[in-house]
């Protein structure tokens, strides 16, 4: 090997510490007299030496250690071993790797087009308070409008506290994930994203039922609602994950599209397979809104009853399905 070699202390697949060795013999062990000090209790005070043999070859030699020095591949106890590049040696619980200066490194990973970091809308300072206020306001309004009995302060309080607690907890989970994988919490950003997702979840159902009422949509409404929720879920996961992984956005979109579609299909598997459990309930939209919400026109009684003639064939078909 070369004049200069590197001793690497491995931890899993990664390198925990790297030592440049230029002068030989070099000693490795727990004692402070060594050139390379290992804080492993199973390593002896003077554990091994790296030295040049008479023929000029660099070797690793055990210095009479308590627990021995082991070659990793194949596993064998060694007294002396010639050093080749990438050779690995185990001492105590520690694995050492030797590499020479001419070790070839992998190609550089190509990054997305480098650009100045763009500040996203929900990273701005005002985004969080605005999103949070919008969420709490909407939630409160929905609780107020949905209650036709006397004002119930308890349920109004819940309508504020619940989304607040939910977003903070949810964002906390994502922030921890961000911290682990990217060393930064991004808590504000995650909270803003969580607020926007929940705002969507609060606003979408009434918006879709109002649309369904206005246009007198029947059975398509359930699917529309399902799709809207899947879209919302995909959007929320995308932005949360943008602050957690370093994946490129194209890859993230592809993965999330698959995940969302699989989730959507599984949650509707019964419908997709045509498995309809027996039920005595009537399945039709029950929303009634003030007259001004009605967009589509009325049919005549004649036309309505003519339109119901197909029902007979539908239920007759159900009998034949058995």
């Amino acid at each position, binding site marked *: 090997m070369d004049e200069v070699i590197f001793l690497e202390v491995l931890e899993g697949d990664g390198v925990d510490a790297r030592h440049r060795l230029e002068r030989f013999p070099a000693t490795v062990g727990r004692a402070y007299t060594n050139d390379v000090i290992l804080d492993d209790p199973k390593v002896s005070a003077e554990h091994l030496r790296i030295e040049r043999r008479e023929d000029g070859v660099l070797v690793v030699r055990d210095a009479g250690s308590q627990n021995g020095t082991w070659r990793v591949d194949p596993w064998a106890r060694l007294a002396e071993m010639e050093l080749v590049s990438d050779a690995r040696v185990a001492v105590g619980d520690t694995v050492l790797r030797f590499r020479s200066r001419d070790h070839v490194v992998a190609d550089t990973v190509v990054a997305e087009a480098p650009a100045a970091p763009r500040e996203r809308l929900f990273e701005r300072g005002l985004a969080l308070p605005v999103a949070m206020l919008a969420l709490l306001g909407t939630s409160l309004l929905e609780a*107020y*409008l*949905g*209650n*036709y*009995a*006397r004002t119930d302060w308890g349920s109004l309080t819940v309508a504020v506290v619940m989304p607040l607690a939910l977003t903070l907890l949810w964002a906390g989970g994502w922030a921890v994930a961000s911290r682990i994988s990217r060393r930064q919490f991004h808590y504000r950003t995650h909270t803003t994203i969580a607020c926007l997702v929940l705002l969507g979840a609060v606003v979408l159902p009434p918006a879709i039922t109002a649309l369904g009422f206005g246009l*007198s949509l*029947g059975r398509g409404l359930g699917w529309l609602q399902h799709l809207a929720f899947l879209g919302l879920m995909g959007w929320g996961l995308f932005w949360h994950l943008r602050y957690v992984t370093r994946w490129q956005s194209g890859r993230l979109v592809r993965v999330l599209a698959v995940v969302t579609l699989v989730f959507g299909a599984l949650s509707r598997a019964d419908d997709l397979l045509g498995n*309809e459990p*027996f*039920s*005595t*309930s*009537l*399945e*039709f*939209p*029950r*929303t*009634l*809104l*003030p*007259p*001004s919400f*009605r967009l*589509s*026109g*009325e*049919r*005549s*009684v004649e036309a*309505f*009853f003519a*339109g*119901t*003639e*197909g*029902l*007979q064939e*539908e*239920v*007759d078909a*159900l*009998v034949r399905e*058995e």
Partner: protein
Amino acid sequence: MSAILLAAVLAQAPVAPVEPGPPLPDSVRALPAPPAPPPAVLPPATHELFQRIQNRVAQVRIIERRSGTRSSIGSAFFVSGTGHAITNYHVVSDVVLHPEDYTAELVLRRGGEPVPARLLDVDVVHDLAVIRIQEPVADFFALEDREPPQGTRLFAMGNPHDLGTTIVEGTFNGLIQDSLYERIHFSGAINPGMSGGPTLTGEGRVVGVNVATMGNQLGFLVPMKHARALLARAVAEPEVEEATLLERVRQQLLDNQQLLTERLMTAALPKQPLGSYQVPGRWTPFLKCWGDTPHDPEVPYTVTNYQCSSEEDIYLSSHHRSGVVAYLHQHATSQKLGALRFSSLYSALFSQDPDLVEASREDVTNFRCETQFVDVGGLPVRAALCLRAYRRFPGLYDLVLRAATLNASTSGVDTSLTLGGFSAANARRLARRYLEVLSWTK
């Protein structure tokens, strides 16, 4: 509502009927005549009556083939010397619906092994059935349909809760007024297990067949004229495959719904004022209507209910009823709620369906609905029409019509009509007539 009695019967010892009946139909007359009656004297005491007729009553057992044991019991009484006996349809419904799984047998009062019985014919609308054992019967009732005067003392026989043959005293109170399916009102205790047993006058003449109770001495009997007609039919065509009975039940249901439809379509549907709306009122006398407005000062709205129902149905199986007409209107109004909060209330009312006709998975399909905005004589309405088919009886359907008016932002009428066991065309005709009555008076 009246509970169907499922269970008891009595066995009997040979004694002669006291009163000679009016002439039977030819087919019945051809049977051996009952033994000659003894001379009429004062009405005998109850124990004498019981002694005299106990052998004319038997217990019906429905045997499930695989377990080989009884799955339900009821009562029956002999009406011919050749083994014909009358019971309720609901006692033998399992044999009609699943002839491959169930058979019937009679336990005679004289003791001995139970005798297998064949199901000959049924009248599902009046809840009657004729069964027959393959051995001659010495002692039986002659059927006649003379009605006794109101207040006559009657005796119901049967086997309540399988406690043994029982005789119960009560009084005759004529036909139930304005009923959809004819029933005699018997003021006496009829209990589960007495179904299919006879109710007699003191002379031992059968007045009706025990069928149902509302508790507290309110009992119901099927008038004898229906039993006589059914017996005549069964005797005229003695060999009927048990499997074809299902088709016969279907035909009877179809005929009945046709009759019902015609009765309703020929009657004028009165308009009942409800708030500032007019809604369908009491369509025919057999519908019983009730109304109420719950008063709760805490609540910022008022909802007025108006509902009509035949309060009677046809028993098809333990979990399937048919032949029902019922409707409910709910008028909601509020001075205090805004338009959107009123919408929440109104949607909540519209989301609740009234009790539907009872049915299980093997009886009916799921509902299919069609919903639209409909213009009913200028009044905008959100209407939904739902239909489900009977699985065992092709051509019969349950229909539910739901409609809510949409002309005002803080008041409205939500209505629902339930029609059980009609042909699709008839159900739609009735629903249309019903919907067209809705109107706004301001």
